[in-house]
């Protein structure tokens, strides 16, 4: 069973702080990490490989230093990695990114299941996974919390719905995006790190994957960021003693809103 896991390098959001004087993001000393949701995707792919054989390939799009997340994935046990890095890709929105990754997956070829994290922790869109599925004309299931059974030509998964769980059957090849309930990601191993350092990671640009450059990058993206700002501060706190009168007063005020 061959698996492909598209991953993303993101700033460690818990570290992102705003400079109150300038209202800008403080990026100094902010680490870049593998998108936390992608760790569950890598782990699930590794588990499926361990059960059914085959291999796991990770692919990421980003600046050259995004190679780090590919090395980390290989240190966890992933077999192959591909870096998509080129000035032409810069500024791609979710539609353009889905296209680039889908083109790369076409070149990697021969796969049964694509496993994505449910969303990236910086953009939170959850749009690239389904977008890749559309470009590859595959069915997909988002927010998968368990892979129940895998057969030669089909997969049965549990996905989270707003009111519970849906059990979904899909043919292979197909695509899933996974949530944190699905597993507990393993740590990197020393042997894995050693292997990752010795493995050559190919870097592909638009020509290597047959991209139409008119629909990638900032100019090829339908959406673009017009403005970034700090969320307005909510009104301050009103400390009060927890007396019965205060509680009754507070409850009254809340209900009036």
């Amino acid at each position, binding site marked *: 069973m061959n698996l492909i896991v598209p991953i993303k390098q993101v700033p460690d959001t818990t570290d992102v702080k705003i400079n109150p004087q300038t209202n800008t993001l403080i990026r100094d000393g902010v680490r870049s990490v593998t998108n936390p949701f992608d760790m569950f995707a890598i782990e699930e792919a590794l588990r499926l490989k361990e059960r059914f054989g085959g291999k796991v390939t990770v692919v990421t799009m980003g600046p050259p230093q995004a190679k780090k997340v590919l090395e980390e994935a290989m240190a966890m046990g992933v077999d192959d990695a591909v870096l998509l890095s080129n000035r032409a890709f810069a500024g791609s929105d979710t539609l353009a990114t889905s296209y680039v990754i889908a083109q790369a997956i076409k070149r990697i070829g021969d796969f049964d299941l694509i496993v994505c994290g449910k969303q990236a922790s910086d953009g939170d869109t959850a749009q690239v996974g389904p977008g890749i599925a559309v470009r590859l004309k595959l*069915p997909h299931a988002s927010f998968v919390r368990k892979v129940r059974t895998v057969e030669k030509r089909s997969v049965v998964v549990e996905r989270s719905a707003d009111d519970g769980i849906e059990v979904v059957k899909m043919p292979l090849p197909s695509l899933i995006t996974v949530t944190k309930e699905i597993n507990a990601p393993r740590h990197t191993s020393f042997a894995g790190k050693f292997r990752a350092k010795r493995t050559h990671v190919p870097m592909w640009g638009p020509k290597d994957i047959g991209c139409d450059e008119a629909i990638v990058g900032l100019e090829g993206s339908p959406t673009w960021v017009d403005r970034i700002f700090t969320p307005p501060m909510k009104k301050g706190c009103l400390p009060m003693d927890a007396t019965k009168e205060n509680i009754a007063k507070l409850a009254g005020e809340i209900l009036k809103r």
Partner: protein
Amino acid sequence: MKIEVIKAKCTGCTLCVRECPVEAIRMLDEKAVIDLDTCILCGACEKVCPVDAILFEKPTRHSKEDLSLYRDVWVFSEQRGGKLADVALELVGEGKKLAKARGSKLCAVLLGHNVSGLARELAFHGAERVYVVDSPRLERFSDESYSQAMVWLIERHRPEIVLAGATAMGRSFIPRVAAEIRTGLTADCTSLGIDAKGNLIQTRPAFGGNIMATILCTKSRPQMATVRPKVMKKPARDEGLSAEIVIEVPGDEILASRQSVIDEIVDAAKGPSLQAAEIIVAGGAGLKK
């Protein structure tokens, strides 16, 4: 499209360094230097530079298509098991404001089986037209049949704006719709508006809510957005309101799906649901007995 510092003009005032939202600008030998790998091409530095030392060519965005062919605001009216999601009604209210600003109609789209009764409920909350696709193939949610039905309707009627709830369902299949149509989609919006040129202004949190971003989709239509439940206000219900009901019948191939829901496990109620609450009161460590 490019961005660069004209070194001869730069006075080293560092205003751009402070303005850059992603800290992509550094001073080197008293001149600003932009790190293009970090730069998000927002143009904030160009606006703040007092000596016009930053050259920023905005991408030219021209469409192959005439965007004026697209009109009306659509709301995907999510229902599960014959019950309308609250967010569908909230979006009817919000969408109607946008339609008013654009001088067009608010239309609801209802997909499901035996759901035509819900069309009236959408009308009572302000929908002016309701497109209904009623088929046993839509009884249970499937990403493929729902997205194909939406794509078919959008290509037939060309709405200018399409809104959907940022629910598990909306966040799963709406990205498929946008990808099929090759148009822009903004996830999890918390505020919507119309700018002077008639474009949809979409505001959403990013970086785990640490910053807000305003997103535009100026060169393709429809402009699509998912909106978080409970952000918009549900409009008042008025049984005196009515809507034009349009029954649409796509071919079976449109509603076909390779994916099937074989079982559903509905959460047994464990007290009131947090998601459905209007107000949440939480206690902190400062609370005493």
